[in-house]
């Protein structure tokens, strides 16, 4: 195994911040390869417990692919190809273990990809997401949630490259950090010259519940086109004391208040899964996480 540079920030910045990328040792071979094509069932669920390459090809009907990644140590490569007009929803639930995940997607004209990623107690997860929006009017929507505690580590690098005219991207990230957890989220919207009429938004909301957490947020916009609208925002901090006071005045104990608010932080992300069974399973995992905490 060799150390490989991962999650390189497309526009590097001050070196002392340590956010320009990371490194991990990863195995050379992938144990398994799975191809999901548009001819398969419209809902596909796969359980990934070892290093795997997953290829998702869009079809005539909208596709929903749910991947539950729960390996001790694994590299997961996911490639998504959405041809003209195809619609794909990809759900990735990543829990426990040391995981390196690399997702690459390319979107043709009028294609759409909706990505839901939920990270639960990842001991050390590195996740790179590269979205190439080459097709005119292609749409990318992502909902990313994470709950980390103890010494959990999570390093995400989302890079949305908007080449096509009138492309639209919308990213929502919500997370909870506890214990000594550390998280880096880099989110880049890259408007290339010629992407006339494109739009891109990104919003991260982070709830910090313990004094030793480390949160790094890097919301980047790169713009080489005049006719675009881009925005990003981030709010990072503690629970609003007014919320705590209100709930205490309704008789809810303080510990339970923290759990309720932490779960509600991810509630809007879980609702985007679009598969009742998976939503309930994730809800149970979140509940277990709360009990453990």
């Amino acid at each position, binding site marked *: 195994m060799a150390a490989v540079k991962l999650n390189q920030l497309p*526009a590097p910045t*001050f070196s002392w911040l340590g956010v320009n990328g990371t490194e991990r040792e990863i195995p050379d071979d992938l144990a398994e390869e799975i191809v999901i094509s548009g001819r398969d069932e419209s809902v596909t669920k796969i359980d990934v417990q070892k290093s795997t390459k997953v290829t998702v090809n869009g079809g005539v009907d909208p596709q929903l692919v749910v991947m539950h990644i729960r390996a001790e140590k694994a590299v997961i490569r996911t490639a998504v190809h959405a041809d003209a007009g195809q619609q794909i929803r990809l759900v990735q639930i990543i829990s426990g273990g040391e995981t390196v995940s690399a997702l690459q997607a390319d979107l043709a004209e009028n294609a759409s990809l909706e990505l839901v990623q939920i990270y639960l107690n990842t001991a050390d997860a590195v996740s790179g997401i590269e979205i190439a929006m080459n097709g005119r009017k292609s749409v990318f929507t992502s909902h990313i949630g994470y709950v980390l505690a103890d010494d959990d580590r999570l390093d995400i690098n989302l890079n949305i490259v908007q080449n096509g005219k009138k492309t639209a991207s919308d990213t929502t990230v919500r997370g909870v950090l506890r214990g000594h957890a550390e998280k880096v989220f880099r989110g880049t919207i890259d408007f290339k010259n010629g992407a006339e009429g494109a739009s891109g938004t990104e919003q991260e909301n*982070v709830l*910090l519940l313990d004094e030793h*957490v480390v949160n790094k947020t890097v919301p*980047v*916009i790169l713009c080489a086109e*005049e006719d*675009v609208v881009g925005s990003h925002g981030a*709010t990072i901090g503690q629970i609003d004391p007014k919320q705590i006071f209100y709930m205490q005045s309704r008789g809810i104990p303080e510990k339970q208040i923290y759990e309720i608010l932490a779960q509600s932080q991810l509630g809007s992300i879980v609702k985007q899964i679009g598969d009742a069974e998976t939503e309930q399973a994730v809800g149970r995992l979140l509940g277990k996480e709360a009990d453990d905490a």
Partner: protein
Amino acid sequence: MKQKAQVADIDRSLYDFRYDEDASDFLSSGITPEIIREISEEKGDPDWMRDFRLRSLEIFSRMKMPVWGPPVDGLEMRNIVTYIRPKSRMNSDWNDVPEHIKETFERLGIPQAERESLAGVGAQYDSELVYHNVRKEVAESGVVYTDLESVMHDPQYADIIRRHFMKLVPPTDHKFAALHGAVWSGGSFVYVPAGVKLEIPLQSYFRLNAKGAGQFEHTLIILEENSELHFIEGCSAPKYYEAGLHAGCVELYVGKHAKLRYSTIENWSKNMYNLNTKRALVEEGGRIEWVSGSFGSHVSYLYPMSILNGRGAAAEFTGITFAGEGQNLDTGAKIVHNAPETSSHIDTKSISKSGGISTFRSAVTVHENAVGSRSSVSCESLMLDGISRSDTVPVMDIRTDKCDIGHEAKIGRISDDAVFYLMSRGMDEQAARAMIVSGFAGNVSKELPLEYAVEMNNLIRLEMTGAVG
């Protein structure tokens, strides 16, 4: 079909005049221990400063160029002249300043500003200060405003200089901080005693006239407890085809409950590499306010840093960057929250046109001990055409839960609806666009001294004037 206002380049005739230099005044180009010793001897450095310069040179030699930011490969360090002997010693009487230097600063409006609205003025021409003066009543209040070279030999202040010089920005900070430590020359020293509140500003103006030269002035300001100061810094140079270099350094010490406003209008010519470092250390209840306008230079790296080191310390950064043809301006701010209940606010605007590249870069770090701290960052970028570029690269590094951090950024172009609305009220398209851009920059101009705000608005109006085609 959409029509666009064609944007003319800025009229730089106000700044673009020059005088021939006497070649015998130039030290050799390049950076070697021999040249450093020669500079040190010319300036009459004390031993500790000569040794400091030589140590800085060693650090410069082994440090690498930054691996991020705009390219600086057009800068050939071996071609840069780091020191030019002054034609005159520093004067406190304007009439004693050599004629061509006097004319330079008069054309830039400096003595007029002193007479009308400043508590004191410093003027640097190439490597050395040529004029420094403070009003009598200001000097009587105990305020010191002079050059670093002479105060280094003053028994009353020599030890203060030694304790503070390049302690906030050590030569190990980055390659150009090391270069500054080796070749620095000129700049200002300001000392404001406890409780003294200056109601009118002090101003230093830096003019680099020589071709292929560098300017490396050092500004050191110390505000004691409960004092207040507004310091204004201006810089310009005529245009040459050879690259010029500005690697100045600003160190600001803001004492308990003191307040410092540091305003800069940077208008170097478009052959300049502006690799400047500015840093403030703010003690309990103190406040630093940066107001920064970046209009000139070929390449800029400029990110004033505020270290909030005492409970309740605060920082505010308001900036605008205007990148036109041939310019790659990388600007922003850095804030370090290193004490409880500190607060910071960054508010920036950037405009890109005619192929210019503007990058907003920031770092907000909140340490574990900074409980109860707050920070908000807002940056907006305006693209005036499709051949320019505008990037936003902020970082937030948060290491305590008891804090509230917010960030927002927007990028876009002038709204067609807004132009249409103004045109429906009788304005032509150019005037409508100019008004929208002036409004966009309004948060900065309202923070500037009046004459600078007027100059900035004139500059924007000039940029926006042109035929519709």
